[in-house]
């Protein structure tokens, strides 16, 4: 199969003939595309972060002049005060950028692209041109989304969930073109994701190196493979729903209009996509964390098969829990019962994964490198995010905490405490492979600790805000007597958030400076077992001079009777002990 799919230009000998544009801009090399996705999504992460800072300014210091607010037009910030309509834009676009243009491409676009061929022993993706198209669709999608800020009426302002009828007519939302740009952008981005997912699935099925059986795949690849299936099935549902919404907005259809359609239908479609999407945003993070924890513990992953089945279990159950977003929506309350039970049950595979990570650490010989610190933070924060999910799953408790800051706290514990810590860990871990240089470990540790502390100071108190009844997405809590006691907490959260944002500048600088000045990395700086570490850093076009053969399971650390404590997948214990030294190191 590989010979059919791999195009001519992936013959290693031809790589030097490519022009600059073909090599670095319209590239078909999965490694370059992975790095392109990395730069694009880090930029959107930064934009999403800036929007979050504006939100926190308004929450902490409502009615006070925004420092630097003069750069915004009068329609957004008037006399230095953030306007309510702009505030709605901010919460909408912060969520949209972070979910669709930062976390999702960071996990799926970056590590799906970069790691899948390198970890399964393939010279490239099955469909390199499709891969290029996937990236070059994501870029205009991003521009379309940003364009919303520059059109009359401002950007979309109906929340990242875009509930109609608010999202449908400017009469209700005050937004004109912005809402439609939101739809078009997501349709284009959806196409990008579908192309990417098709490619990943085909590649994993067809292009594994000899000996790379299914149960020798690293958990990162298992997670990315299952995630790709979720993407392929879930994204078309979103695209379909968004197209219906766009038709309602522009050509007068009535899918979600109250007179003849059902506003609640949108919620069913959106969350039928949206809950698998949650797992699209966490499964790859779990995968890379498994790789890093095995490496850091110098132990095989505990319960590898359970981990694989847990990924599959989460992916399957993820399809039958969407109603838990809709307990108070007017959906039949009897459905609430069944969605509650399915949601409760999905806690089980998550618990299995957590305990297996702990089992991996147990009796290890732990190396606290920067990726390992982030991976342990992931486990620790995912425990909080997972447990706080139980409160919302419980229908009666959800009556009270639904649409409050408790939900905001939960999603940030999963997506920041979970996904983003995993992303920081994974970037630091594979940076030497991508760029041939190490990120600075000293500044990496400073960044980690500042982020870990400021992150918890920002998001943990939001649970308490929610328990006070503080609604999410409200511009000014001082309108309510029952929220008068929350102001101090809001100020504390805002200041923590500013520290959190400032700490990320350390990461940005470390990322950029290490590219040029970082210590040169060998082929295998972390002494890891994965196939990607058996080729030079960065790998040449085509990845290996000759396709590797796989002899061992993925996490053979500390094998008894060996001098070194790791056994790369392309070697067997016999080969190493018979005197052939391990490659890399």
């Amino acid at each position: 199969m590989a010979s059919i799919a791999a195009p001519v230009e992936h013959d290693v000998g031809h790589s030097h003939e490519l022009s600059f544009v073909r090599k670095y801009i319209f590239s078909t090399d999965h490694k370059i595309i992975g790095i392109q996705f990395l730069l694009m999504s880090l930029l959107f992460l930064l934009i999403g972060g800036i929007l979050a800072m504006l939100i926190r300014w308004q929450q902490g210091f409502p009615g006070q002049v925004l420092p630097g607010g003069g750069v915004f037009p009068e329609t957004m910030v008037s006399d230095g005060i953030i306007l309510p309509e702009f505030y709605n834009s901010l919460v909408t676009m912060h969520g949209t950028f972070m979910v669709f243009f930062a976390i999702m491409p960071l996990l799926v676009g970056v590590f799906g692209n970069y790691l899948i061929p390198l970890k399964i022993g393939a010279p490239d993706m099955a469909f390199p041109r499709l891969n290029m198209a996937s990236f070059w669709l994501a870029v205009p999608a991003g521009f379309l989304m940003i364009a919303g800020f520059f059109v009359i009426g401002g950007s979309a302002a109906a929340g990242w969930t875009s509930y109609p009828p608010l999202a449908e007519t400017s009469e209700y939302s005050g937004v004109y073109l912005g809402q439609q740009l939101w739809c078009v952008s997501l349709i284009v981005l959806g196409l990008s994701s579908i192309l990417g997912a098709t490619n990943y699935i085909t590649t994993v099925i067809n292009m594994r190196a000899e000996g790379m059986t299914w149960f020798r795949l690293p958990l990162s690849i298992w997670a990315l493979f299952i995630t790709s299936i979720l993407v392929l099935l879930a994204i078309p549902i979103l695209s379909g729903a968004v197209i219906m919404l766009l038709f309602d907005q522009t050509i007068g259809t009535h899918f979600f209009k109250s007179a003849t359609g059902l506003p609640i239908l949108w919620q069913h479609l959106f969350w039928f996509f949206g809950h698998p999407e949650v797992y699209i945003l966490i499964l790859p993070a779990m995968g890379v964390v498994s790789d890093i924890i095995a490496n850091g513990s110098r132990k095989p992953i505990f319960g590898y098969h359970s981990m694989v089945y847990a990924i599959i279990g989460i992916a399957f159950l993820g399809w039958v829990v969407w109603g838990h977003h809709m307990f108070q929506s007017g959906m039949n309350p009897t459905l609430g019962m069944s969605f509650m039970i399915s949601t409760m049950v999905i806690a089980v595979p998550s618990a299995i994964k957590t305990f297996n990570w702990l089992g991996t650490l147990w009796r290890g010989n732990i190396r606290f490198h920067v990726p390992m610190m982030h991976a342990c933070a992931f486990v620790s924060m995912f425990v909080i995010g997972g447990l706080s999910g139980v409160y919302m799953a419980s229908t009666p408790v959800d009556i009270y905490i639904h649409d409050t800051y408790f939900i905001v706290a939960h999603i940030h514990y999963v997506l920041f405490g979970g996904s983003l810590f995993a992303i920081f860990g994974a970037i630091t871990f594979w940076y030497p492979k991508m760029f041939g240089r190490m990120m600075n470990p000293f500044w990496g540790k400073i960044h980690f600790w500042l982020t870990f502390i400021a992150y918890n100071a920002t998001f943990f108190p939001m649970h308490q805000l929610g328990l006070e009844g503080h609604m999410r997405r409200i511009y000014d809590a001082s309108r309510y007597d029952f929220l008068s006691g929350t102001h101090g907490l809001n100020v504390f959260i805002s200041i923590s958030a500013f520290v959190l944002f400032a700490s990320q500048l350390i990461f940005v600088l470390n990322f950029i400076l290490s590219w040029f000045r970082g210590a040169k990395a060998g082929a295998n700086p972390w002494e890891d077992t994965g196939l990607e570490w058996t080729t030079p850093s960065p790998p040449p076009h085509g990845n290996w001079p000759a396709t590797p053969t796989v002899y061992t399971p993925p996490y053979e650390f500390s094998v008894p009777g060996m001098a070194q404590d790791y056994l790369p997948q392309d070697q067997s214990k016999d080969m190493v002990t018979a005197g052939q030294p391990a490659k890399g190191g």
Partner: protein
Amino acid sequence: MDWILPHAVSSYAGDIDAIYYLILVITGIAFVVTEAALVWFLIKYRGRPGRQASYIHGNTKAEIVWTAVPAVTVVVIGLLSGSVWNSIKGRDSVPAGAIPIGVHAKQFEWNVTYPGADGQLGTGDDFTVRNQLHVPVDTPVVVHLSSEDVIHSFFIPAFRVKQDAVPGMHIRVWFKAMETGEYELACAELCGLGHYRMRAAVTVHTADDYQRWLSEQSQTVALQER
């Protein structure tokens, strides 16, 4: 218990809060156990020269235990939650004889329709007041919720009640206030640029006060209409 959650004043708020505190205890134990294990392992098994990690691939008995224990726990939480849910939002949960009050949400106000002297909605003596919800204490009230334009959400934190108002749908939600006083009704679903100020005052009267207020209002409204 006003320990973490604010003071609750509806008949079922105590049940909701009890489930909350139950989950708090269970997840609290799970949190402490897992985080303590994590920190303990990180300290105890920190890398030291000359030490070798154990070459272990897993343990089936451990997998069974940490699959079964969370599974049983969450299903129990689910079943306990289910009965409370049914008593609040279930199909037949609205108590017989509850006073009907119409609440029609629109950007950005709550229009509250009272049944007048005959106790029936949809009759000639109904009257509507904006942004004021008046209810009698110790009496079940069923709110007939609807929306003019977009989705709103009827949220009285002190009563632990929340229900979306959806255009095109007629949704019933009930509560029984247990203490007289002034409370607040907020919109909990983003409904546009005035979402944050879509607020109404909630007044819980004694039964006599409520009747007095009702007759005063119906006279005022009747005079206005004449």
